[in-house]
Protein backbone atom coordinates (compact mmCIF):
# COMPACT_ATOMS: atom_id res chain seq x y z
CA UNK A 1 0.00 0.00 0.00
CA UNK A 2 1.01 3.62 -0.42
CA UNK A 3 2.87 5.26 2.46
CA UNK A 4 1.73 8.70 3.53
CA UNK A 5 3.70 10.78 5.99
CA UNK A 6 2.43 13.89 7.71
CA UNK A 7 5.02 16.62 8.10
CA UNK A 8 4.60 19.38 10.66
CA UNK A 9 6.23 22.73 9.95
CA UNK A 10 4.91 26.21 10.75
CA UNK A 11 4.32 29.67 9.36
CA UNK A 12 4.04 30.01 5.61
CA UNK A 13 6.00 28.40 2.81
CA UNK A 14 9.28 30.34 2.69
CA UNK A 15 13.03 30.00 2.16
CA UNK A 16 13.23 28.30 5.54
CA UNK A 17 10.98 25.40 4.43
CA UNK A 18 12.13 24.96 0.82
CA UNK A 19 14.20 21.86 1.54
CA UNK A 20 11.18 20.10 3.04
CA UNK A 21 9.08 20.97 -0.01
CA UNK A 22 11.86 19.74 -2.29
CA UNK A 23 12.25 16.55 -0.27
CA UNK A 24 8.53 15.80 -0.66
CA UNK A 25 8.80 16.31 -4.40
CA UNK A 26 11.89 14.12 -4.78
CA UNK A 27 10.60 11.28 -2.62
CA UNK A 28 7.31 11.14 -4.47
CA UNK A 29 9.09 11.16 -7.84
CA UNK A 30 11.53 8.43 -6.86
CA UNK A 31 8.78 6.11 -5.62
CA UNK A 32 6.29 6.87 -8.40
CA UNK A 33 3.95 8.46 -5.90
CA UNK A 34 3.98 5.43 -3.58
CA UNK A 35 5.58 7.42 -0.74
CA UNK A 36 4.24 10.93 -0.18
CA UNK A 37 4.86 13.65 2.37
CA UNK A 38 1.89 15.88 3.29
CA UNK A 39 3.36 19.11 4.57
CA UNK A 40 1.18 20.99 7.04
CA UNK A 41 1.98 24.56 7.95
CA UNK A 42 0.85 24.77 11.57
CA UNK A 43 -2.23 22.54 11.28
CA UNK A 44 -0.80 19.61 13.21
CA UNK A 45 1.11 21.20 16.07
CA UNK A 46 2.54 24.37 17.53
CA UNK A 47 6.18 24.84 16.53
CA UNK A 48 7.45 24.51 20.09
CA UNK A 49 5.70 21.15 20.37
CA UNK A 50 6.83 19.48 17.19
CA UNK A 51 9.21 17.24 19.14
CA UNK A 52 6.35 16.18 21.41
CA UNK A 53 4.29 15.34 18.34
CA UNK A 54 7.10 13.19 16.95
CA UNK A 55 7.45 11.44 20.28
CA UNK A 56 3.71 10.70 20.45
CA UNK A 57 3.60 9.50 16.86
CA UNK A 58 1.19 12.25 15.80
CA UNK A 59 3.15 12.84 12.59
CA UNK A 60 6.21 11.31 10.99
CA UNK A 61 8.40 14.30 10.20
CA UNK A 62 8.85 17.74 11.74
CA UNK A 63 11.03 20.82 11.84
CA UNK A 64 11.91 22.70 15.03
CA UNK A 65 14.58 25.01 16.40
CA UNK A 66 16.90 23.95 19.20
CA UNK A 67 16.67 27.32 20.94
CA UNK A 68 12.89 27.11 21.37
CA UNK A 69 13.40 24.63 24.18
CA UNK A 70 17.02 24.11 25.19
CA UNK A 71 16.17 21.52 27.84
CA UNK A 72 14.45 19.29 25.28
CA UNK A 73 17.59 19.04 23.16
CA UNK A 74 20.62 20.23 25.13
CA UNK A 75 23.26 18.55 22.95
CA UNK A 76 22.50 20.34 19.69
CA UNK A 77 22.46 23.76 21.36
CA UNK A 78 26.23 23.62 20.82
CA UNK A 79 25.37 24.90 17.35
CA UNK A 80 23.76 27.99 18.87
CA UNK A 81 26.81 29.05 20.89
CA UNK A 82 27.86 32.63 20.07
CA UNK A 83 30.79 33.28 17.74
CA UNK A 84 31.37 29.76 16.48
CA UNK A 85 32.91 31.42 13.45
CA UNK A 86 30.60 29.89 10.86
CA UNK A 87 30.66 32.13 7.80
CA UNK A 88 28.60 30.49 5.08
CA UNK A 89 25.48 28.39 4.77
CA UNK A 90 27.63 25.51 3.46
CA UNK A 91 29.73 25.63 6.62
CA UNK A 92 26.53 25.72 8.69
CA UNK A 93 25.34 22.55 6.94
CA UNK A 94 28.68 20.84 7.53
CA UNK A 95 28.88 21.58 11.26
CA UNK A 96 25.19 20.79 11.84
CA UNK A 97 25.36 17.43 10.11
CA UNK A 98 28.58 16.57 11.93
CA UNK A 99 26.88 17.20 15.26
CA UNK A 100 23.73 15.34 14.16
CA UNK A 101 25.97 12.37 13.40
CA UNK A 102 27.45 12.38 16.90
CA UNK A 103 26.27 9.67 19.24
CA UNK A 104 25.41 12.15 22.02
CA UNK A 105 23.07 14.14 19.81
CA UNK A 106 21.40 10.99 18.53
CA UNK A 107 20.91 9.73 22.06
CA UNK A 108 19.49 13.09 23.07
CA UNK A 109 16.91 13.06 20.29
CA UNK A 110 16.20 9.34 20.73
CA UNK A 111 14.38 10.32 23.94
CA UNK A 112 11.81 11.90 21.62
CA UNK A 113 11.76 8.89 19.38
CA UNK A 114 13.29 11.21 16.81
CA UNK A 115 16.01 10.68 14.24
CA UNK A 116 17.88 13.72 12.91
CA UNK A 117 17.47 13.89 9.15
CA UNK A 118 18.84 17.23 7.99
CA UNK A 119 19.35 20.81 9.05
CA UNK A 120 17.71 24.06 7.92
CA UNK A 121 20.82 26.18 7.61
CA UNK A 122 20.39 29.74 8.75
CA UNK A 123 22.84 32.52 8.09
CA UNK A 124 24.40 34.32 11.04
CA UNK A 125 22.01 36.62 12.85
CA UNK A 126 22.74 40.30 12.61
CA UNK A 127 21.06 43.24 14.20
CA UNK A 128 19.04 46.01 12.65
CA UNK A 129 18.67 49.20 14.62
CA UNK A 130 17.34 52.72 14.66
CA UNK A 131 19.27 55.91 15.37
CA UNK A 132 23.02 56.29 15.02
CA UNK A 133 24.76 53.12 13.81
CA UNK A 134 26.50 51.30 16.65
CA UNK A 135 29.87 50.27 15.32
CA UNK A 136 31.89 49.74 18.50
CA UNK A 137 31.43 47.29 21.35
CA UNK A 138 31.26 50.16 23.84
CA UNK A 139 28.16 51.40 22.05
CA UNK A 140 26.31 48.15 22.81
CA UNK A 141 26.19 49.16 26.46
CA UNK A 142 22.58 49.78 27.59
CA UNK A 143 21.29 48.93 24.10
CA UNK A 144 17.93 47.14 24.34
CA UNK A 145 18.18 44.23 21.95
CA UNK A 146 15.65 41.56 20.98
CA UNK A 147 17.81 38.45 20.99
CA UNK A 148 17.20 35.08 22.59
CA UNK A 149 19.37 32.22 23.80
CA UNK A 150 23.13 32.29 23.27
CA UNK A 151 23.01 35.46 21.19
CA UNK A 152 21.11 37.25 23.94
CA UNK A 153 23.73 36.10 26.44
CA UNK A 154 26.50 37.39 24.23
CA UNK A 155 24.95 40.82 24.05
CA UNK A 156 24.35 40.91 27.76
CA UNK A 157 28.05 40.10 28.31
CA UNK A 158 28.96 43.44 26.74
CA UNK A 159 26.38 45.38 28.75
CA UNK A 160 23.40 45.32 26.36
CA UNK A 161 19.93 44.64 27.76
CA UNK A 162 18.25 41.63 26.13
CA UNK A 163 14.55 42.43 26.01
CA UNK A 164 11.77 39.93 25.88
CA UNK A 165 9.38 40.32 22.94
CA UNK A 166 7.91 37.68 20.66
CA UNK A 167 9.05 37.59 17.05
CA UNK A 168 5.64 38.83 15.90
CA UNK A 169 5.84 41.79 18.28
CA UNK A 170 9.40 42.64 17.22
CA UNK A 171 8.28 45.27 14.73
CA UNK A 172 5.97 46.94 17.25
CA UNK A 173 8.65 46.75 19.89
CA UNK A 174 11.11 48.49 17.62
CA UNK A 175 8.62 51.11 16.56
CA UNK A 176 7.78 51.88 20.17
CA UNK A 177 11.32 51.95 21.49
CA UNK A 178 10.75 48.85 23.64
CA UNK A 179 13.89 47.64 21.87
CA UNK A 180 16.57 49.57 20.01
CA UNK A 181 17.73 46.66 17.92
CA UNK A 182 16.51 43.25 16.76
CA UNK A 183 18.67 40.23 15.91
CA UNK A 184 17.35 37.95 13.16
CA UNK A 185 18.47 36.15 10.06
CA UNK A 186 17.83 38.07 6.86
CA UNK A 187 14.66 36.22 5.84
CA UNK A 188 13.16 36.94 9.26
CA UNK A 189 14.06 40.64 9.09
CA UNK A 190 12.02 40.62 5.89
CA UNK A 191 9.20 38.41 7.20
CA UNK A 192 8.67 40.32 10.45
CA UNK A 193 9.14 43.73 8.85
CA UNK A 194 11.96 44.85 11.12
CA UNK A 195 13.96 45.87 8.05
CA UNK A 196 11.29 48.47 7.25
CA UNK A 197 11.97 50.17 10.54
CA UNK A 198 15.74 49.89 10.39
CA UNK A 199 18.28 52.61 9.74
CA UNK A 200 21.30 50.30 9.86
CA UNK A 201 22.23 46.62 9.72
CA UNK A 202 25.44 45.01 10.96
CA UNK A 203 26.96 43.13 8.07
CA UNK A 204 29.77 41.37 9.90
CA UNK A 205 28.86 41.13 13.58
CA UNK A 206 27.89 37.47 13.07
CA UNK A 207 27.25 36.67 16.73
CA UNK A 208 25.70 33.27 16.03
CA UNK A 209 22.53 31.68 14.73
CA UNK A 210 19.77 29.24 15.65
CA UNK A 211 19.80 25.62 14.66
CA UNK A 212 16.67 24.13 13.21
CA UNK A 213 16.78 20.42 12.36
CA UNK A 214 14.26 18.33 10.47
CA UNK A 215 13.63 15.04 12.27
CA UNK A 216 11.67 11.88 11.54
CA UNK A 217 9.86 9.52 13.86
CA UNK A 218 12.17 6.54 14.38
CA UNK A 219 9.43 3.89 14.26
CA UNK A 220 7.98 5.30 11.08
CA UNK A 221 11.44 5.49 9.55
CA UNK A 222 12.15 1.86 10.39
CA UNK A 223 8.77 0.78 9.06
CA UNK A 224 9.62 2.12 5.58
CA UNK A 225 10.36 -0.38 2.85
CA UNK A 226 13.97 -0.47 1.68
CA UNK A 227 13.05 1.34 -1.51
CA UNK A 228 11.23 4.07 0.40
CA UNK A 229 14.02 4.54 2.89
CA UNK A 230 16.57 4.77 0.08
CA UNK A 231 14.37 7.31 -1.68
CA UNK A 232 14.22 9.42 1.47
CA UNK A 233 17.88 9.18 2.48
CA UNK A 234 19.17 9.76 -1.01
CA UNK A 235 17.07 12.92 -1.41
CA UNK A 236 18.47 14.79 1.56
CA UNK A 237 21.56 16.16 -0.19
CA UNK A 238 19.60 17.33 -3.18
CA UNK A 239 16.97 18.97 -0.96
CA UNK A 240 19.72 20.81 0.91
CA UNK A 241 21.35 21.96 -2.34
CA UNK A 242 18.00 23.31 -3.47
CA UNK A 243 17.61 25.13 -0.15
CA UNK A 244 21.10 26.64 -0.42
CA UNK A 245 20.51 27.85 -3.96
CA UNK A 246 17.19 29.36 -2.99
CA UNK A 247 18.47 31.06 0.17
CA UNK A 248 21.56 32.18 -1.72
CA UNK A 249 19.32 34.03 -4.16
CA UNK A 250 17.63 35.74 -1.23
CA UNK A 251 20.99 36.80 0.20
CA UNK A 252 22.03 38.18 -3.17
CA UNK A 253 18.93 40.34 -3.19
CA UNK A 254 19.71 41.50 0.34
CA UNK A 255 22.02 44.34 -0.68
CA UNK A 256 19.36 45.62 -3.05
CA UNK A 257 16.81 45.47 -0.21
CA UNK A 258 19.11 47.49 2.03
CA UNK A 259 19.57 50.06 -0.67
CA UNK A 260 15.87 50.29 -1.44
CA UNK A 261 14.98 50.83 2.22
CA UNK A 262 17.87 53.23 2.78
CA UNK A 263 19.50 51.03 5.40
CA UNK A 264 23.19 51.66 6.19
CA UNK A 265 25.46 48.63 6.11
CA UNK A 266 27.63 48.75 9.23
CA UNK A 267 31.02 47.00 9.15
CA UNK A 268 32.60 46.69 12.57
CA UNK A 269 36.43 46.95 12.63
CA UNK A 270 38.18 43.62 13.26
CA UNK A 271 39.55 44.89 16.59
CA UNK A 272 36.04 45.56 17.85
CA UNK A 273 34.85 42.11 16.77
CA UNK A 274 37.81 40.55 18.55
CA UNK A 275 36.95 42.46 21.72
CA UNK A 276 33.32 41.31 21.52
CA UNK A 277 34.38 37.69 21.01
CA UNK A 278 36.83 37.80 23.89
CA UNK A 279 34.21 39.16 26.28
CA UNK A 280 31.25 37.10 25.14
CA UNK A 281 32.32 33.89 23.43
CA UNK A 282 34.73 32.25 25.84
CA UNK A 283 32.86 32.54 29.16
CA UNK A 284 29.53 31.50 27.61
CA UNK A 285 31.10 28.51 25.90
CA UNK A 286 32.93 27.44 29.05
CA UNK A 287 29.76 27.70 31.10
CA UNK A 288 27.88 25.70 28.46
CA UNK A 289 30.49 22.93 28.46
CA UNK A 290 30.40 22.79 32.24
CA UNK A 291 26.60 22.56 32.31
CA UNK A 292 26.58 19.83 29.67
CA UNK A 293 29.28 17.73 31.30
CA UNK A 294 27.33 17.93 34.56
CA UNK A 295 24.38 16.30 32.76
CA UNK A 296 26.59 13.61 31.28
CA UNK A 297 26.66 15.14 27.81
CA UNK A 298 30.15 15.38 26.27
CA UNK A 299 30.08 19.15 25.79
CA UNK A 300 33.78 19.57 25.13
CA UNK A 301 33.76 16.79 22.56
CA UNK A 302 30.77 18.33 20.75
CA UNK A 303 32.40 21.74 20.68
CA UNK A 304 35.70 20.30 19.42
CA UNK A 305 33.78 18.47 16.72
CA UNK A 306 32.28 21.76 15.52
CA UNK A 307 35.71 23.45 15.43
CA UNK A 308 37.34 20.53 13.65
CA UNK A 309 34.56 20.22 11.08
CA UNK A 310 34.82 23.90 10.37
CA UNK A 311 38.58 23.57 9.76
CA UNK A 312 38.13 20.51 7.57
CA UNK A 313 35.42 22.17 5.52
CA UNK A 314 37.59 25.18 4.87
CA UNK A 315 40.60 23.01 4.06
CA UNK A 316 38.46 21.02 1.64
CA UNK A 317 37.46 24.10 -0.30
Amino acid at each position, binding site marked *: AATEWNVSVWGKRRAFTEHVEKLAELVSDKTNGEFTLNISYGGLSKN*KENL*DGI*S*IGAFEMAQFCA*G*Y*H*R*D*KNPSITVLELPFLGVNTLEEEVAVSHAVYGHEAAQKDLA*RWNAKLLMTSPMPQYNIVGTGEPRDAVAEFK*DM*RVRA*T*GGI*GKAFSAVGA*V*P*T*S*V*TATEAYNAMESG*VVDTVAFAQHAHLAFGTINRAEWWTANLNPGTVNCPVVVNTDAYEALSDAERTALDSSVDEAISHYLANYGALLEKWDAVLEEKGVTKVMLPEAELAAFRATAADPIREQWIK*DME*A*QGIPGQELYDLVVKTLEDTRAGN
Partner: protein
Amino acid sequence: MAGNAAVLEDGSLISRLDRKLLKLEQVFALISGLAVFSLMLMAVVSVAGRNTMNAPLPGYVDWIEQAMPLIAFMGIAYVQRDGGHIRMDIVIGALRGRALWLFELISVLLILVLMLALVWGSWSHFSRSFDFAAPLWSRDSSIDIGLPIWPAKLLAPVAFAVLCLRLLLQVWGYGRAMVLGLDTPVAVPLIQDAAEQAAAEAEQLSGHDNDAIGGQG
Protein backbone atom coordinates in the same frame (compact mmCIF):
# COMPACT_ATOMS: atom_id res chain seq x y z
CA MET B 1 -27.47 30.79 26.17
CA ALA B 2 -25.02 30.86 28.97
CA GLY B 3 -24.53 31.93 32.43
CA ASN B 4 -25.05 31.03 36.00
CA ALA B 5 -27.75 28.97 37.58
CA ALA B 6 -28.75 28.35 41.12
CA VAL B 7 -27.30 25.43 43.08
CA LEU B 8 -29.53 24.39 45.98
CA GLU B 9 -28.11 23.17 49.27
CA ASP B 10 -29.36 21.04 52.17
CA GLY B 11 -27.93 18.78 54.85
CA SER B 12 -27.60 15.65 52.70
CA LEU B 13 -24.24 13.96 52.12
CA ILE B 14 -24.07 15.01 48.48
CA SER B 15 -24.75 18.63 49.37
CA ARG B 16 -22.12 18.59 52.10
CA LEU B 17 -19.57 17.16 49.67
CA ASP B 18 -20.64 19.79 47.16
CA ARG B 19 -19.85 22.57 49.59
CA LYS B 20 -16.53 21.02 50.63
CA LEU B 21 -15.45 20.79 47.02
CA LEU B 22 -16.72 24.32 46.43
CA LYS B 23 -14.24 25.63 49.02
CA LEU B 24 -11.36 24.08 47.09
CA GLU B 25 -12.74 25.35 43.82
CA GLN B 26 -13.01 28.87 45.19
CA VAL B 27 -9.40 28.85 46.32
CA PHE B 28 -8.34 27.70 42.86
CA ALA B 29 -10.45 30.41 41.21
CA LEU B 30 -9.00 33.08 43.46
CA ILE B 31 -5.49 31.96 42.51
CA SER B 32 -6.54 32.40 38.94
CA GLY B 33 -7.79 35.93 39.65
CA LEU B 34 -4.58 36.83 41.46
CA ALA B 35 -2.62 35.57 38.49
CA VAL B 36 -4.54 38.02 36.27
CA PHE B 37 -3.61 40.75 38.71
CA SER B 38 0.03 39.66 38.52
CA LEU B 39 -0.06 40.15 34.73
CA MET B 40 -0.91 43.74 35.37
CA LEU B 41 1.86 44.18 37.93
CA MET B 42 4.43 42.55 35.64
CA ALA B 43 3.58 45.01 32.89
CA VAL B 44 3.90 47.93 35.27
CA VAL B 45 7.26 46.68 36.54
CA SER B 46 8.52 46.03 33.03
CA VAL B 47 7.43 49.35 31.55
CA ALA B 48 8.57 51.33 34.59
CA GLY B 49 11.89 49.48 34.73
CA ARG B 50 12.47 50.08 31.05
CA ASN B 51 11.72 53.77 31.17
CA THR B 52 13.39 54.67 34.44
CA MET B 53 16.40 52.37 34.80
CA ASN B 54 16.70 50.84 31.34
CA ALA B 55 16.00 47.52 33.05
CA PRO B 56 12.90 45.81 31.63
CA LEU B 57 11.68 42.70 33.45
CA PRO B 58 14.02 39.96 32.18
CA GLY B 59 12.04 37.25 30.42
CA TYR B 60 8.77 39.23 30.55
CA VAL B 61 7.20 37.13 27.78
CA ASP B 62 8.34 33.88 29.41
CA TRP B 63 6.77 34.89 32.71
CA ILE B 64 3.47 35.78 31.06
CA GLU B 65 3.40 32.43 29.31
CA GLN B 66 4.01 30.75 32.65
CA ALA B 67 1.14 32.65 34.28
CA MET B 68 -1.41 31.93 31.56
CA PRO B 69 -2.18 28.30 32.52
CA LEU B 70 -2.84 29.49 36.09
CA ILE B 71 -5.37 31.93 34.71
CA ALA B 72 -6.90 29.61 32.16
CA PHE B 73 -7.33 26.34 34.07
CA MET B 74 -7.54 26.87 37.79
CA GLY B 75 -11.14 28.05 37.91
CA ILE B 76 -12.56 25.42 35.55
CA ALA B 77 -14.35 23.34 38.20
CA TYR B 78 -15.68 26.43 39.95
CA VAL B 79 -17.38 27.52 36.74
CA GLN B 80 -18.78 24.03 36.09
CA ARG B 81 -20.22 23.96 39.63
CA ASP B 82 -22.47 26.91 38.86
CA GLY B 83 -23.24 25.75 35.35
CA GLY B 84 -21.30 28.72 34.02
CA HIS B 85 -19.74 27.13 30.93
CA ILE B 86 -21.58 28.39 27.87
CA ARG B 87 -24.18 26.21 26.21
CA MET B 88 -27.22 26.48 24.03
CA ASP B 89 -30.29 25.69 26.13
CA ILE B 90 -33.17 26.07 23.69
CA VAL B 91 -33.75 22.33 23.53
CA ILE B 92 -32.76 21.33 27.02
CA GLY B 93 -34.58 24.33 28.47
CA ALA B 94 -37.86 22.96 27.12
CA LEU B 95 -37.49 19.67 28.98
CA ARG B 96 -38.92 18.99 32.42
CA GLY B 97 -38.55 16.33 35.11
CA ARG B 98 -36.93 12.98 34.37
CA ALA B 99 -36.34 13.74 30.69
CA LEU B 100 -34.37 16.84 31.68
CA TRP B 101 -32.28 14.96 34.26
CA LEU B 102 -31.58 12.22 31.72
CA PHE B 103 -30.23 14.74 29.20
CA GLU B 104 -28.18 16.49 31.86
CA LEU B 105 -26.83 13.15 33.07
CA ILE B 106 -25.72 12.08 29.60
CA SER B 107 -24.16 15.45 29.03
CA VAL B 108 -22.09 15.36 32.26
CA LEU B 109 -21.10 11.77 31.61
CA LEU B 110 -19.76 12.74 28.20
CA ILE B 111 -17.85 15.64 29.73
CA LEU B 112 -16.46 13.25 32.34
CA VAL B 113 -15.22 10.89 29.62
CA LEU B 114 -13.53 13.80 27.83
CA MET B 115 -11.95 15.15 30.99
CA LEU B 116 -10.62 11.76 32.11
CA ALA B 117 -8.99 11.44 28.70
CA LEU B 118 -7.57 14.94 29.04
CA VAL B 119 -6.20 14.25 32.52
CA TRP B 120 -4.34 11.36 30.91
CA GLY B 121 -3.25 13.38 27.89
CA SER B 122 -2.19 16.49 29.77
CA TRP B 123 -0.36 14.39 32.36
CA SER B 124 1.55 12.75 29.55
CA HIS B 125 2.32 16.22 28.17
CA PHE B 126 3.61 17.19 31.61
CA SER B 127 5.67 14.06 32.06
CA ARG B 128 7.49 14.62 28.79
CA SER B 129 8.74 17.91 30.21
CA PHE B 130 9.74 16.48 33.58
CA ASP B 131 12.84 14.45 34.38
CA PHE B 132 14.13 13.75 37.87
CA ALA B 133 17.63 13.36 36.48
CA ALA B 134 17.80 16.77 34.80
CA PRO B 135 18.80 20.10 36.36
CA LEU B 136 15.66 21.72 37.85
CA TRP B 137 13.91 18.47 36.78
CA SER B 138 13.46 20.19 33.46
CA ARG B 139 13.11 18.54 30.06
CA ASP B 140 11.45 21.58 28.50
CA SER B 141 12.34 25.21 29.01
CA SER B 142 11.15 28.62 27.84
CA ILE B 143 12.75 30.30 24.86
CA ASP B 144 14.14 33.45 26.41
CA ILE B 145 15.41 32.88 29.93
CA GLY B 146 15.09 29.09 30.01
CA LEU B 147 12.46 28.72 32.75
CA PRO B 148 11.42 25.10 33.35
CA ILE B 149 7.93 24.60 31.90
CA TRP B 150 6.85 21.52 33.84
CA PRO B 151 5.16 23.44 36.70
CA ALA B 152 2.88 25.22 34.24
CA LYS B 153 2.16 22.00 32.39
CA LEU B 154 1.31 20.25 35.63
CA LEU B 155 -1.50 22.72 36.29
CA ALA B 156 -3.63 21.26 33.50
CA PRO B 157 -3.97 17.70 34.87
CA VAL B 158 -4.39 19.04 38.42
CA ALA B 159 -7.20 21.44 37.52
CA PHE B 160 -8.81 18.83 35.24
CA ALA B 161 -8.72 16.26 38.04
CA VAL B 162 -10.63 18.62 40.31
CA LEU B 163 -13.13 19.09 37.48
CA CYS B 164 -13.49 15.31 37.27
CA LEU B 165 -14.40 15.24 40.97
CA ARG B 166 -17.00 17.94 40.34
CA LEU B 167 -18.37 15.97 37.40
CA LEU B 168 -18.63 12.81 39.50
CA LEU B 169 -20.71 14.76 42.02
CA GLN B 170 -22.92 16.05 39.23
CA VAL B 171 -23.35 12.57 37.76
CA TRP B 172 -24.51 11.48 41.20
CA GLY B 173 -26.72 14.55 41.58
CA TYR B 174 -28.48 14.22 38.22
CA GLY B 175 -28.67 10.43 38.52
CA ARG B 176 -30.35 10.78 41.89
CA ALA B 177 -32.76 13.36 40.54
CA MET B 178 -33.69 11.06 37.66
CA VAL B 179 -34.17 7.94 39.77
CA LEU B 180 -36.13 9.72 42.50
CA GLY B 181 -37.95 11.99 40.08
CA LEU B 182 -36.99 15.14 41.98
CA ASP B 183 -38.10 18.62 40.94
CA THR B 184 -35.36 20.62 42.61
CA PRO B 185 -32.33 18.41 43.29
CA VAL B 186 -29.41 19.73 45.34
CA ALA B 187 -25.76 20.05 44.31
CA VAL B 188 -26.42 20.52 40.60
CA PRO B 189 -26.96 23.77 38.72
CA LEU B 190 -30.65 24.22 37.90
CA ILE B 191 -31.66 25.81 34.64
CA GLN B 192 -33.15 29.21 35.06
CA ASP B 193 -34.97 30.63 32.13
CA ALA B 194 -32.95 33.16 30.24
CA ALA B 195 -34.64 36.15 31.84
CA GLU B 196 -34.23 34.92 35.42
CA GLN B 197 -30.62 34.19 34.70
CA ALA B 198 -29.96 37.57 33.19
CA ALA B 199 -31.60 39.15 36.20
CA ALA B 200 -29.26 37.23 38.47
CA GLU B 201 -26.24 38.37 36.50
CA ALA B 202 -27.36 41.95 36.34
CA GLU B 203 -28.17 41.89 40.06
CA GLN B 204 -24.62 40.87 40.77
CA LEU B 205 -23.11 43.61 38.63
CA SER B 206 -25.37 46.37 39.80
CA GLY B 207 -24.80 45.33 43.37
CA HIS B 208 -21.12 46.06 42.85
CA ASP B 209 -21.81 49.31 41.14
CA ASN B 210 -24.13 50.56 43.85
CA ASP B 211 -21.68 49.66 46.56
CA ALA B 212 -18.90 51.51 44.89
CA ILE B 213 -21.04 54.54 44.22
CA GLY B 214 -22.72 54.39 47.61
CA GLY B 215 -19.36 54.29 49.33
CA GLN B 216 -18.62 57.64 47.77
CA GLY B 217 -21.98 59.19 48.51
